[in-house]
């Protein structure tokens, strides 16, 4: 199995070739404005390596922040129709009701609210309003809208009303792109609807971008299927990604953690990914990042995406050191006046850091002076004193220790995997850490994570009048079915996460069960 993993970050586009579980070659190129150019140049650089140039490639897996950036920057978003099914319930809180105004103005086209939807016990709130849906579909066609998000109450338990609405809409508007909220999972109407609406708004951009990825791959002479990584560290096919671009929102951080797990061979550990500007601390469980349970805001919109639970601090290789010239004990109250971060020189590190001939003192310069790493030209460090450098490293250590302690879920020492271009800032001895693991190619862990990504399936349902074991078994079976449908080899599917939550004030000892499974990509 030979697979190329690509991570398109804000600064660099990293690419690796993985062959039978081994990194053959890894390259870094600057990310380009159009995303595609950066991918093309990293693929070119990768293919100049003799072992990459020849031989078949089984798949190209890309992780990108392109779609989340579009939402945050309010760019390339389309006008959409929002269809809510569940009237008369929830009538006073229509679609877009908790969006930032500028984003709603950009995205909201037609808003349709119809009778229908379900209760938690499977009964219909009201019969689905077929005729009204057809009339609305004609209005949507008349308005020239090309993308729609459809959300019905309790659709994760019973999606039939969403599906019926989609069928009618397709009859009236044959070319419309449709997002059904239950495909994005999770109970919580507003957050699920928001995810569906964001997804619908990204429809055109997803098509253009993923077509561009395909063209770049073809242009570099590679004949292999394209996959995109999603928030939970697993992959989806290019076709699925085109339909569900929101599923790739947080893939960068997730890929780093998955890469760290792969390169270290560890399944349960803490991970710190030190980049140029910030460090992300997370926790691996069963080889996957532990997920955040809480509401996640994307560009000011509340959603319930599957996102890794990360704690980020403003510390990286490019972090700017302030007051480096002041003696360490010269601050007020005898405290050190030296600070590091959160400002950073970012991608200008190779021009502006002292060791590269620049004039700004960075964390990298301090690390070189303190002797923890050899980068650039140490002779250029000039007046940066050893005491100051060691003070900066001590400060960075304290910041990392605090961040790691916040993310730990158990007392006692744990293992930490340090990855990312700035991993040299992580010392070998840290409070609460038994061992710091460093891995070859750790600076490209994100691209490695993309290359090794598996196929997942998830379910989130309410079960009643069942034992806990029966409910979990039913949920696992459904999640496995979904993973297989997504292209996983059934023989390799493993359960990643089981979460069960008894529900207050519901009869029949109702239990909400969420199960996530993942398996290797089938060689289809």
């Amino acid at each position, binding site marked *: 199995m030979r697979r190329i993993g690509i991570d398109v970050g804000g600064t660099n586009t990293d690419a690796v070739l993985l062959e039978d579980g081994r990194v053959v070659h890894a390259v870094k190129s600057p990310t380009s404005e159009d995303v595609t150019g950066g991918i093309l140049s990293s693929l070119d650089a990768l293919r100049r390596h003799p072992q990459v140039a020849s031989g078949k490639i089984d798949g190209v897996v890309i992780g990108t922040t392109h779609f989340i950036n579009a939402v945050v920057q309010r760019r390339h978003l389309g006008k959409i129709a929002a269809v809510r099914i569940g009237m008369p319930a929830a009538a006073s809180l229509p679609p877009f009701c908790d969006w930032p105004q500028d984003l709603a103005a950009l995205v909201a086209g037609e808003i349709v609210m119809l009778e229908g939807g379900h209760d938690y016990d499977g009964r219909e709130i009201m019969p689905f309003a077929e005729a009204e849906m057809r009339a609305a579909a004609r209005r949507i066609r008349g308005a020239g809208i090309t993308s729609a998000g459809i959300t019905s109450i309790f659709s994760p338990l019973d999606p039939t009303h969403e599906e019926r609405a989609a069928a009618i809409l397709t009859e009236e508007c044959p070319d419309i792109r449709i997002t059904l909220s239950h495909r994005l999972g999770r109970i919580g109407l507003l957050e699920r609807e928001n995810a569906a609406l964001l997804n619908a708004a990204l429809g055109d951009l997803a098509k253009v971008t993923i077509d561009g990825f395909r063209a770049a791959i073809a242009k570099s002479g590679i004949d292999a299927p394209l996959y995109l990584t999603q928030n939970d560290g697993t992959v989806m096919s290019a076709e699925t990604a085109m339909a569900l671009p929101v599923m790739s929102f947080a893939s960068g951080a997730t890929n780093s953690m998955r890469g760290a797990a792969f390169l270290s061979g560890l399944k349960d550990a803490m991970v710190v990914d030190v980049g140029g500007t910030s460090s992300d601390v997370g926790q691996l469980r069963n080889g996957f990042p532990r997920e955040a349970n809480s509401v996640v805001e994307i560009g000011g919109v509340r959603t319930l995406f599957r996102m890794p639970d990360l704690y980020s601090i403003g510390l990286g290789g490019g972090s700017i050191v302030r007051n480096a010239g002041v003696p360490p004990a010269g601050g007020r109250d005898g405290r050190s006046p030296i600070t590091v971060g959160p400002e950073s020189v970012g991608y200008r590190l190779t021009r502006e850091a002292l060791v590269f001939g620049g004039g700004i003192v960075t964390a990298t310069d301090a690390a070189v002076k303190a002797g923890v790493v050899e980068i650039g030209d140490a002779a250029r460090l000039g007046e940066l004193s050893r005491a100051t450098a060691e003070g900066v490293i001590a400060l960075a250590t304290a910041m990392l220790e605090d961040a790691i302690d916040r993310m730990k879920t158990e007392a006692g020492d744990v293992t930490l995997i340090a990855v990312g271009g700035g991993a040299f800032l992580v010392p070998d001895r840290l409070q609460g850490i038994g061992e710091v693991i460093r891995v070859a190619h750790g600076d490209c862990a994100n691209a490695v994570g993309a290359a090794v990504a598996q196929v997942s399936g998830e379910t989130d349902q309410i079960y009643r009048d069942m034992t806990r074991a029966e409910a979990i078994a039913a949920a696992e079976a459904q999640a496995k079915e979904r993973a297989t449908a997504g292209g996983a080899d059934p023989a390799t599917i493993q359960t990643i996460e089981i979460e069960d939550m008894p529900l207050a*004030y519901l009869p029949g000892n109702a239990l909400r069960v969420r199960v996530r499974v993942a398996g290797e990509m089938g060689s289809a």
Partner: protein
Amino acid sequence: MTETREITLDDIESLAVGAWILGTGGGGSPYLGLLNMRRLYAEGHRLQLMSPFDLADDDWIAVVSNMGAPLVGQERLADSRNIARAVEMQEAYHGWKFRAVLSLEIGGNNSIQPLMAAAHLGLPVVDADTMGRAYPEAQMTSVAVGDLRPYPCALYDPRGIEAMVTQVPTWKWMERTSRKICTEMGSIASTCKAPRTGAEVKKWGIHFTTSKAIGIGRKVREAQRRHEDPIAAVLDEGQGKLLFRGKVVDVARRTTEGFLRGTASIEGLDEDRGSRLELAFQNEWVVAWRDDGSERRPIAMSPDLICVLDSVSGNAFGTETIRYGMRASVVALPAPPVFLTAKGLQHVGPRAFGYDIDFRSVFA
């Protein structure tokens, strides 16, 4: 304080934060109610908050709440017109009009329900409630402690189902009967409880709790803006005591008889390092035990309010959302005096939740 004043939208933003803290882990997030109020204020609605002591003895006061499973609320959301309709059902049943609207419970999303009803009906909101916090059952109110009449209760479902429970022998029976109806409605119902007279609200209401929730919320939001300690702000504004600071290390949940029960364990940090705090909950936090290794003793219990707050933001953690790794500060706030009597403790003391311990106040 006997004056009526306008409630600003900023007050309601603060109320949402403060009421979630007074929810003591339950009561549901006020977020959806807040969204409704933002919309109503954008449409031009304005509300008045009146002192309970400005009520005439023979005024009729509507006591409102949303009943049901928080999870169902996340799907069916909250519609301001539904709670107004439940109030109108009572008026139609009795043939008279209400003077004002009162919250059944100031903790959680029910703090906003009277505001939503009042906006549609053009009535003032009374600065009081009947719990001073959130509690799981109908008999756990100050008016039940006062043995006031438990009926009639109006329940409304927006698909056109209207029910009145016109007579029951006790508050417990009201709880059981109305809960059944609520379940049939999809485990969510807008309810208007037994009407209260102005005299009853003055004697048995828990007074100025709306202002208290707004005050706590405002101080927390100010502390967040200024990067000051929000926990200190809660202690100061709520005249509370800090019980424990630490990190959540274990959460176990189960449902029995429809209630969410379980325990959460918090491992001490800073001054509490080396100790553990164990919290038992039935929808809300009920009892806190401190374990110092050699000794394990209860240090706080209902009816004192046990609030588990995010050590950084000061926002409340709910019993449904608390999980491993969260940094928590556990704070006690004083119980309303009505619950400290022998009769009050029968309704909401530790034994009412199945814990065979004598009530000892954190503030004794």
